[in-house]
């Protein structure tokens, strides 16, 4: 188990700042997910850590060793690639044995380790096949077996599940997570899929434009997003963003816009009272924190009425788009709810679960 520390890491491609001053500290044995939309620099960051990309500036440490300019083969790391990168001219056995053969382990040791890795991933019966004779999922298992066979200091995974079908992805998600917990290897996992990030990561680093927007547990990132980007990127359906003003009426603070007036609960008051009311703010409400009037589990709510513009009937849930003067409001309702498009509906916003952001900086107030 190794601690990974990244200090002021920068990687520019000509003028494109793919990774722009990233600082991260990953505790030994932790499973960290680098999450972000495509082009956010997450893969570049991973490749800088692997040594496949030479950094422009900054340092990478494994424990206290500065490995910034070490070549990949000397870093004692391994990697699972997006397209598996299982060598097609070698059998599964030779593929898995490869890292050990290069390190000149004894034949018996190699055999023992290959058998161990193969049985961990349930591919014992495929050892003498060639990769072209395998399905995508099996190839992925070979790639993972190859990456753990030499017991690396750090395991890097670059969107390893993105080429698998949806069902297999869910299964591999759990398997990889369990495997990592068993091996306790420090892992960096790149993905653009928030579900993978939320389910697998001990901590998640949300990246955008080469910068870490927020680094924390899934709980922190979901409940306390630091800015509108993180708030909008995490959660499905996406958080509702509404431009509001702060209004003081009879000593009570309200967030208002056309057709909406939301009372600020006392728990938020302190943070808002310090703000100037001349600036613009963005109110954020997650669709799952708005309830349809008929099932009302919480006390402090704001009522809102509108016509159903469109209903996505997922059957497990129903996502309702409610017409409002400020735009459409997304609501996540139970799947058994009877909804008709064009009909009036009353919805209740959970006042304790709202978020407020500054409009100019996009930073969270609460």
């Amino acid at each position, binding site marked *: 188990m190794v601690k990974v520390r990244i200090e002021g890491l920068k990687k520019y491609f000509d003028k494109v700042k793919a990774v722009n001053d990233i600082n991260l500290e990953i505790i030994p044995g932790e499973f960290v997910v680098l999450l972000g939309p495509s082009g956010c620099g997450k893969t570049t960051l991973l490749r800088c850590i692997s040594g496949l990309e030479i950094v422009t500036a900054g340092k990478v440490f494994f424990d206290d060793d500065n490995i910034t300019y070490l070549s*990949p083969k000397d870093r004692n790391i*391994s990697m699972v690639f997006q397209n598996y990168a299982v*060598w097609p001219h070698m059998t599964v056995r030779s593929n898995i044995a490869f890292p050990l053969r290069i390190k000149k382990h004894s034949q018996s040791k190699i055999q023992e380790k290959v058998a161990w890795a193969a049985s961990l991933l349930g591919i014992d019966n495929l050892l003498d096949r060639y990769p072209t004779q395998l399905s995508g999922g099996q190839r992925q298992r070979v790639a993972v077996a190859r990456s753990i066979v030499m017991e690396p200091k750090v395991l890097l995974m670059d969107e390893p599940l993105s080429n698998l079908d949806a069902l297999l992805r869910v299964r591999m998600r759990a398997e990889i997570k369990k495997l990592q917990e068993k091996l306790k290897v420090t892992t960096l996992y790149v993905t653009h899929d928030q579900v993978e990030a939320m389910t697998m990561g001990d901590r998640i680093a949300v990246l955008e434009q080469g910068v870490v927007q927020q680094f924390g547990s899934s709980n922190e990132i979901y409940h306390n997003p630091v800015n509108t980007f993180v708030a909008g990127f995490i959660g499905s359906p996406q958080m509702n963003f509404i431009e509001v003003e702060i209004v003081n009426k009879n000593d009570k603070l309200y967030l208002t816009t056309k057709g909406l007036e939301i009372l600020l609960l006392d728990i938020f008051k302190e943070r808002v009272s310090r703000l100037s009311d001349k600036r613009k703010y963005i109110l954020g409400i997650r669709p799952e924190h708005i309830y349809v009037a008929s099932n009302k589990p919480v006390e402090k709510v704001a009522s809102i009425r509108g016509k159903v513009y469109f209903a996505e009937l997922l059957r497990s849930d129903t996502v309702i788009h409610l017409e409002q003067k400020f735009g459409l409001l997304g609501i996540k309702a139970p799947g058994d709810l009877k909804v008709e498009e064009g009909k009036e509906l009353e919805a209740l916003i959970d006042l304790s679960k709202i978020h407020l952001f500054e409009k100019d900086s996009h930073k969270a107030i609460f």
Partner: protein
Amino acid sequence: MNSQKIPLLLRIRPLITIFIVVIILIWFLTPLVLITLSAFASSDDYYQFEKVIPTHFTLHHFESLFFGLEAWKAIINSLSVAGITMLLSFLIGLPAGYALSRYVFPGKNFLKLLCMVTKMFPLMVLAVPLLIIFMRIGISDSTWGTSLAHTAMVLPIIILIFSSILSGVSVEYEEAAMIFGLSRIQAFFHITIPLVLPGLAASAIFAFNISWNEVFVATILTLTNRTLPAHILKTAMASPDYIKFAAGFIMAVPAMVFIFFVRKHLVTMWGISLK
């Protein structure tokens, strides 16, 4: 049961394909067959038109070609020239093709274009100055001189071919090898080369055949150490027709044998197809 009939066009489509294939085969194979038959025919049979299929089998023409006209020397020359050409174009072409396929650098496209420019000048324009230069540095009329000239002819296209075959191997394969303990050069030899072997074999055939068949430059650059085509042009063409056919036969055969042996590498190996 009321089954639908397969439309006529669909039913005869395989027949049409076979017909076209047969035409193509006749087109390519007739000269070969005629050359082969005539090469082994006795001179009596050869001059009797109705005996297309010869009645007497003889190796006499080859004897006179090989020993009387000393073609065996020319064959050895040709084999070594083609071999050296192949070797040189691989030695230079592989790194050059790798650089073109893997790296982005200023002037890359210009360089690729430059490769084609060398093919722009007619050989006649280049051959005479080349001979003068070769005479000055003392490699005219030598196997090496001809090999260098042939390499220069083959290399531009070999580089472009190599860059395109190497582009067919995903960078991830090499990167994975580098992660798991190889340097970039080791990764190239352990991972990339085995994967592009079919393509390399095809390129080898290409380089070999260009050199084996090249006659113009070889004739100008050499006098005594002639390659086979140059030698045949000078000697066999002044001989009776059946000698010419024997010469045509020994020109065609080595190339065919060579292709026969590397042919299995031309078919996609391990199920990967390389464009």
